[in-house]
């Protein structure tokens, strides 16, 4: 394997929360240009995995390592991980009353500019930048004045996550059930946004329950999680098999 293409390397990870082990012997390697899908039943540890990569303080890493671009990120703060290019699209995007989307997005964008010693953009410049990106996910400009996710429909919240992803232009994106709760039109818009974003320098990890999303976004690998580890890896065929037979059948084998 050519390691310089290796973007994310999770090695023998063991993670606990409140003394409960929730990930164990977890291994995953994601290269540039790859899309991975992680499937699994509720409580199998999919969301935990995404939060652990993003550096959520609730989880304790007991064993193993997470290498991002060949460097361990275990001791790196969540905001720095974000600057380094790790993006998490939340399963339940958080509502932030009193803070406008525009301010939030600009602050986020400028924090990243600052991190790379690039000039911060003023609100007028930013408006131009964000308006361009909003077209990609069919969002109207009125949404900028609304508070972050407050009163958003499920579809709007998920589109907002994708907008942030496009705006911050990260190297690896973990999309935690971004497809859940979407009607077919919204699913198409979001899939289009994701596909446009993807290129040979980036990687995406899709966490999903359903094969439906994979009709629009084609992963190279499909992993199935159970009890905190990946128990099976395959191609798109595996997702189809799961859809037909269910997890029970798979676990039996």
């Amino acid at each position: 394997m050519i390691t310089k293409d290796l973007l994310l390397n999770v090695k023998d990870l063991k993670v606990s929360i409140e003394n409960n082990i929730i990930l164990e012997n977890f291994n995953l390697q994601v290269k540039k240009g790859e899309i991975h899908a992680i499937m699994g039943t509720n409580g199998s540890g999919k969301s935990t995995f995404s939060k652990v990569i993003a550096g959520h303080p609730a989880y304790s890493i007991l064993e193993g390592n997470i290498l991002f671009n060949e460097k361990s990120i275990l001791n790196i703060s969540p905001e720095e991980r974000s600057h380094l290019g790790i993006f998490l699209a939340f399963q339940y995007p958080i509502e932030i009353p009193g803070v406008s989307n525009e301010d939030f997005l600009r602050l986020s964008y400028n924090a990243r500019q600052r991190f790379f010693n690039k000039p911060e953009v003023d609100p007028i410049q930013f408006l131009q930048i964000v308006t361009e990106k909003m077209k990609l996910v069919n969002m109207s400009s009125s949404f900028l004045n609304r508070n972050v996710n407050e009163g958003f429909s499920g579809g709007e919240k998920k589109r907002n996550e994708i907008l942030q992803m496009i705006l911050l232009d990260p190297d690896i994106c973990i999309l935690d059930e971004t497809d859940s709760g979407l009607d077919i039109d919204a699913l198409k818009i979001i899939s289009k946004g994701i596909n446009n974003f993807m290129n040979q320098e980036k990687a995406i990890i899709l966490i999903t329950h359903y094969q439906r999303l994979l009709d629009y976004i084609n992963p190279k690998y499909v992993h199935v999680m159970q009890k905190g580890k990946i128990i099976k890896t395959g191609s798109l065929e595996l997702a189809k098999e799961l859809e037909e037979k269910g997890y029970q059948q798979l676990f039996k084998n």
Partner: protein
Amino acid sequence: MNNKSNKTINENLTNLVNKSYDYGFSTNIEKDIIEKGLNEQTIKLISSKKNEPLFLLEFRLKAYKKWKRIQEPEWANLKIPMIDYQNIVYYSAPKLKKKLKDLNDIDSQLLETFEKLGISLTEQKRLSNVAIDAVFDSVSITTTFREELSEYGIIFTSMSEAILTYPELIKEYLGSVVPIGDNYYSALNSAVFTDGSFCYIPENVKSPLDLSTYFRINDQNSGQFERTLIVADKNSQVNYLEGCTAPQYDTNQLHAAIVELIALENSIINYSTVQNWYSGNEYGKGGIYNFVTKRGLCIGDNAYISWTQVETGSAITWKYPSCVLFGNKSQGEFYSVALTNNYQQADTGTKMIHFGKSTKSKIISKGISAGKSKNSYRGLVQVKDKALNSRNYSQCDSLLIGNCSNSNTFPIISIQNSATKIEHEASTSKIGEEQIFYFLQRGISLEKAIELMISGFCQEVFNKLPLEFAAEADKLLTLKLEGSVG
């Protein structure tokens, strides 16, 4: 979220909230102090020190008799330790060598003290658009821009001087909004008040400057009992700002003030306070007890009074800036941000009493509680039978930070006619760690996240503050909250 992360988040939040208090120094200056304790002799002594006319001594003695007969109010959601009123100094003034003629006569130490507080009293540096009355313990040190203001017929002077120079105005208005016996603390204040500001805006004058009083408690054992009286004559307008700080002592000091506003026909008074008394340390030791009666009277038709307050200091706050709307179509507004942290307690709100027809009132209250503090909004909206076609809009929002703070809302609405429209909205939210993680994941630092959420929460109130104050208030809240989210 598990305990460990809760702990780290709360620890960081706590550090954020517990930023040290910048104004905690005290000034060592020679003082003219009377003995501790309160009796008729004390009052006579204060009155004679100030060469007051007889009517005022009688006013004081009447108030004292009243005070002795009434009890401290117990209805507030506060735990108030026993206050020994005989163990308080009721008059403490920096010793002045001679009567002040200009700023050169002011003790340089006092000038430095105010300089350190960011209040420049010297000619060259003072704020160009704000006239300031600087009160140090029991007395007013100086009032800036007096001559400039007098060209417009505006009287802006210390209360002591007003009593001597304008006894007729004082006789007419002092105690006309907050009667002597209104409550325990107003009776106490009326008996022993030492200084404060007096301001009169004549007919058809819009004050070209914002007027301001800066209160500084310096002495460890003295209470501060000041009195502010503002009269806006017909068609006049004034913006008034009040600021306050105190040294950091581990004992408590008492502050019991009265502010009376009188707005005649078509006049406008905007009264803003940024209160930053010392609030005690993280274990709840020390700090100011702040028992304040503030009330405005819209006596003429179309008169308007607004109270804007940012309350961040004080160990205990008991304060309800109110409006009594007599004039038809008169309006009262109240905008408040009250922030409590550590062991601070605040019971604050407003009263809007509608007497006149087509009167309007608006209440926007934002309470933020962090640490182990207790923050209550208490409000009364009363619409009398003659006040037809009146309206009130109230909005009370609370924001909790951490898991140990406490927030309450006690809105009382009493309507005595059927042609009145009342709206009340309330909300409680919490800055949770999932929100903070969301910010962090998007690369935004904790401090910035808190600042953004707090200023978003307070925006409606900050918008009402004069520009310099709004920036200061924003900074102050962020400072006070530094370290309280993690």
